[in-house]
Structures are given as structure tokens and as C-alpha cells.
């Protein structure tokens, strides 16, 4: 007999959380940023600016930058007859629907609560939680972040005329996971590796947090008011005029020269325990195991003490169809004095 049925307890399902570097070529931090003039000049370029890891022909998109404005400022109108309707307003509505899930709500940087104590233990005042009607978006390419962004891994440097600010998420400062709408949301603060600077939790003095990280959406919102207060980088909010705000943030990133981020995904593995008892699988249908056409085993000592070498494990369904296969790294000796236990891992 060649097939052996598996028992119920031979199967184990395990979920493993895997984190890894997010950018192409497994670099932990992007230090150089490239745009593509064709993309920037295209119709899509009026909405967002794609950022690449290299200028060579094998460049890959790492993330997109967009600017969103509730009033439609910072970009040309679709039609002069309809004031305020512009790409930046469209994008604002897009993210309001996606994140806030209510067209009557506004984005609040610092805390979703209006008053009280925030997750960092700071007293919320009008200066630590502000309502904003514009923001920058950094949208990570889906293939890069896989399932979600790993909280605590964000280290972003932005440069402006007043210097460089290092921004991280505050996931390591808090004990409960905060939500906005139905998605996880971590405030962006001044600090590193998921912790804000101790003095004030990393918030600005008067403009709330620097933004919000949405790990499950692969999205980072940046609060222009806080960034402007810190490094004097502010978007252009002229009506019916291209403010080149995507380019402004790109330049800031380029001069900051450091954008670290990790991905996180849960891999479900199916483990199958394959057990070969001492009396099983000791003979082989391998042609070199047989001498001649009559089927005699090749060596006389193989009659009572056969030795076989397991190289391959085949997993079959009830129809005897081979659905999965695993190879050993080297042959595993099997005879009547040995039992083999092989754990086969199937990833989905």
C-alpha cells in the first residue's frame, strides 16, 4: 500500500504575524525619492504624485502623495461655472467617506475627543486637538505594505525652511488601540519608533498632532497646520489655482531624506503531521530498488532489512489527486527500526 490516511489530529492551523521592511529591495528606510514627469503631467497628476525608489527603468512606485482640501483650494477648478469643485475637494470627500464614514464630520488632529485626557495622558485643549479642513495624504502602494502598516515603525523626516522634524506614530505610548470610524488610527507626533518625545507627548504647542496613521488603510494623513508651525512648510490654498502642494511635500521628503516604515501581515499556515510508523514505507517502487523485470529487490539484505530514503512527501485528496508536495532538504533514511515524523507546512 502506498497511501496512508491522515487523522483529524494530524492537522493544525496556525496564524503567524510577519513583519518586514516595506520598501522595494528591502531597504528599511527610503533616503532618496524620485518622481516621474510623465505621471506628474498626466491627468492623474492633477490628483496625486507617485513617488519611486529609483530613476532607472525598473523603478517601482513606493507611495503616492496627494493634497486634500475641503474648500477645493490648491488646484484648478474642473469648471469655472461651479466654484470650489476641484481635485483637492474630490479627494477630501473621498477620504472623509472612507475614514470618517459621515459627510458631516471633520478631521480632528490630536484627539477624536473634544476634551478630557488624551491617550498620552495630556489634557486635551483646543490647542492639542484641532479641526482641520485640509491635509496631505501619503498613500502607500498596496504591494508594499501587504496587509497593513506595522504600527511603531514609522520614522518620517520632513524638511522646511525652519529645519527638519522627525515624526512617528504614538502606538507605543498608548495602551488601548484608538479608532476613527471603524479603522485603527494613531496620532503622528514628534519622536521616533512609535514614541513621542516625553515633554508633551510629541504634540505641537498650538496645532494638534502632526497627522494620523491608518495602518489598515496604508494611509498617512499629515496636518499642514502642525507642520507649518514646526518647519514652516505650508500648502498653497489659493482658489482655482494649482498650488503644486504635492510637489511641495515631495521636496520636503527629499530634503528630509529618511522615511522608514514596516509592513505587517498574518500568514495562515496549515501544518500537517505526516507519521510513518516503523513497519510502513520500507519498500520502494523505485526502478533502481528492483533487479530485472520480475520485481526482485536489488540486494538480498533488502529482503529482511530493507532501507529506503524519503525525499518527497505527497499530499492527496480522496480522489488520489496530488494537491501539494514537499521535498526534504536531504534524504531521510527509513527502515523497520525507524519511525519518521515530518511536519509539512502549507501557506495560504
Amino acid at each position: 500500500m502506498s497511501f496512508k490516511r491522515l487523522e483529524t489530529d494530524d492537522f493544525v492551523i496556525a496564524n503567524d504575524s510577519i513583519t518586514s521592511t516595506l520598501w522595494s529591495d528591502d531597504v528599511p528606510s527610503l533616503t532618496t525619492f524620485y518622481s516621474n514627469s510623465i505621471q506628474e503631467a498626466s491627468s492623474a497628476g492633477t490628483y496625486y504624485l507617485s513617488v519611486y525608489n529609483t530613476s532607472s527603468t525598473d523603478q517601482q512606485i513606493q507611495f503616492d502623495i496627494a493634497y486634500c482640501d475641503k474648500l477645493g483650494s490648491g488646484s484648478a477648478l474642473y469648471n469655472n461655472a461651479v466654484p470650489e469643485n476641484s481635485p483637492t475637494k474630490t479627494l477630501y470627500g473621498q477620504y472623509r467617506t472612507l475614514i470618517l464614514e459621515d459627510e458631516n464630520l471633520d478631521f480632528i488632529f490630536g484627539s477624536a475627543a473634544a476634551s478630557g485626557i488624551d491617550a498620552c495622558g495630556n489634557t486635551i485643549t483646543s490647542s492639542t486637538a484641532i479641526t482641520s479642513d485640509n491635509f496631505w495624504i501619503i498613500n502607500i502602494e498596496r504591494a508594499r505594505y501587504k496587509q497593513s502598516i506595522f504600527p511603531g515603525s514609522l520614522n518620517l523626516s520632513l524638511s522646511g525652511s525652519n529645519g527638519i522634524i522627525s515624526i512617528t506614530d504614538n502606538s507605543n505610548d498608548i495602551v488601548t488601540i484608538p479608532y476613527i470610524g471603524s479603522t485603527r488610527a494613531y496620532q503622528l507626533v514628534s519622536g521616533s519608533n512609535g514614541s513621542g518625545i516625553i515633554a508633551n507627548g510629541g504634540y505641537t504647542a498650538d496645532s494638534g498632532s502632526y497627522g494620523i496613521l491608518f495602518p489598515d488603510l496604508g494611509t498617512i494623513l499629515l496636518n499642514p497646520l502642525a507642520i507649518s508651525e514646526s518647519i514652516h512648510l505650508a500648502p498653497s490654498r489659493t482658489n482655482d489655482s494649482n498650488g503644486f502642494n504635492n510637489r511641495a511635500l515631495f521636496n520636503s521628503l527629499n530634503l528630509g531624506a529618511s522615511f522608514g516604515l514596516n509592513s505587517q501581515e498574518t500568514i495562515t499556515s496549515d501544518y500537517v503531521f505526516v507519521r510513518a510508523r516503523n513497519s510502513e514505507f520500507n519498500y520502494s517502487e523505485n526502478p533502481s530498488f528492483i533487479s530485472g523485470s520480475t520485481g526482485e529487490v536489488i540486494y538480498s539484505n533488502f529482503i529482511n532489512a530493507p532501507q529506503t530514503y524519503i525525499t518527497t512527501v505527497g499530499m492527496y485528496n480522496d480522489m488520489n489527486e496530488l494537491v501539494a508536495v514537499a521535498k526534504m532538504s536531504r534524504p531521510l533514511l527509513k527502515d523497520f527500526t525507524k519511525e519518521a515524523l515530518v511536519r509539512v507546512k502549507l501557506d495560504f
Partner: protein
Amino acid sequence: MGYLNNQVITVDAILTKKGRELLAKNDGSFRITQFALADDEIDYTLYNPTHPSGSSFYGEAIDNMPLLEAFPIESQIMKYKLATLPRGTAKMPVLDLGYAAITLQQGASISITPQTLNYLGNSQTYETSGYSLTISDIRLLNTFNGLGINSTAATSANAEASNAVTTTLGTDVANTVIGTQFNLRGTTINTLFAPSNTSINGTLTFIGLDSGARLTIPITINYTT
């Protein structure tokens, strides 16, 4: 006192082409229920029972050989299965077809009834679960079916093959049927021989579903003017 080796060998499996197909169907057919072991790549002539250093060294040439990664095509892997047989077995099961090669004219038929020698104490027997027969290129045949086994697997495989001979006329794909008797009829489609081939070739692989014994023979279909 030393530590006992409690290591469990862990290997990563890949899905075969058939496995991916069944997973995509999402109809429950991708359900692992049994396993088999094989010793593909092992050449037992390298085993040396007269090694001067003793029995620990008989398998010296095999023990540490590097192995290839798994192939996803079912027909290229799990070729030589390990079998569970009573200790003292002197002869391994082998298949007997009565043919070393098969040559058919276009439209001609043949019926093949495999037997297994040296199996379960019998010099010659039919295996209870039957045999699988895989043709390397289904286009060679107009009729390809197996009879004598009524299992779900056999019924499904035979129905699929019956469908394949009419729906995959232009595609070079393998196909498998299950039974104790197999009926084959050479293709009548002349275009397969174009422009000047007088014959087309393939292989037939028989596998005993109980014993794991395997035999591959060539098949040739001759063009009939």
C-alpha cells in the same frame, strides 16, 4: 548523559498545478485526506552493502546528497512511491500489461487490462482499487476511458477524460482515467499529422493504486491515408 534529539523535521509544501486548480474551484475538492512518501532522485545502485567500512557506510553515497526543489507538475513528482509491505518481501509488485509499446492506426482501438505481479502473496492479481492511466497528450486519442472501478474518483476522472477528448482537441495536455480495463482509440483528426508527419507519439503511464507500482510505455498513432 546526553540530550535526546527531539527535532521534528519541518518541510514547506507547494501546491501542485492540480492543487491550485482545485483550490480555485472552491468546491471542497481541495481537501487533503491522505499522504504518500516517495524516493524520487534516489539511485539504489549507489547503496553499497559490501562497503569495507561496515554497515554504517552502506548508504554513504546517498545519505547527504542534495535534493532538488519540488516540481508543481504532478506527473513529474512522486514518481516512485514507498510501499508498505510485509517484512521478508523478496519481490516488489510490478505491472504487467502484455505490451511493451502500443502502435495504433488512426481510428483503431485497443483494450488494455493491467495486472500486478508479486502483490499480496499472489503471483498475478488485479488490484482492488484499480489502476490509473495517464496519457501525456490527450489529442492522440478519440476514446480514452477506464472500466471496472465505481469509486467517486474513477467516475470523476473518466467523465473528465471523456470531456477532454472532445474539448481539448487543440491543446497538448495530459489526462488520467481510473479502472481495471482501459479502452483507447486512435485519433481520426488528420490535422494533428500536418504537414508531413506519418505518426504522432506520446506515453502511457500506468500506476497500481494499491501497490504504487508504475510502468510507462510509448504509444504511437500512425497516419492513415
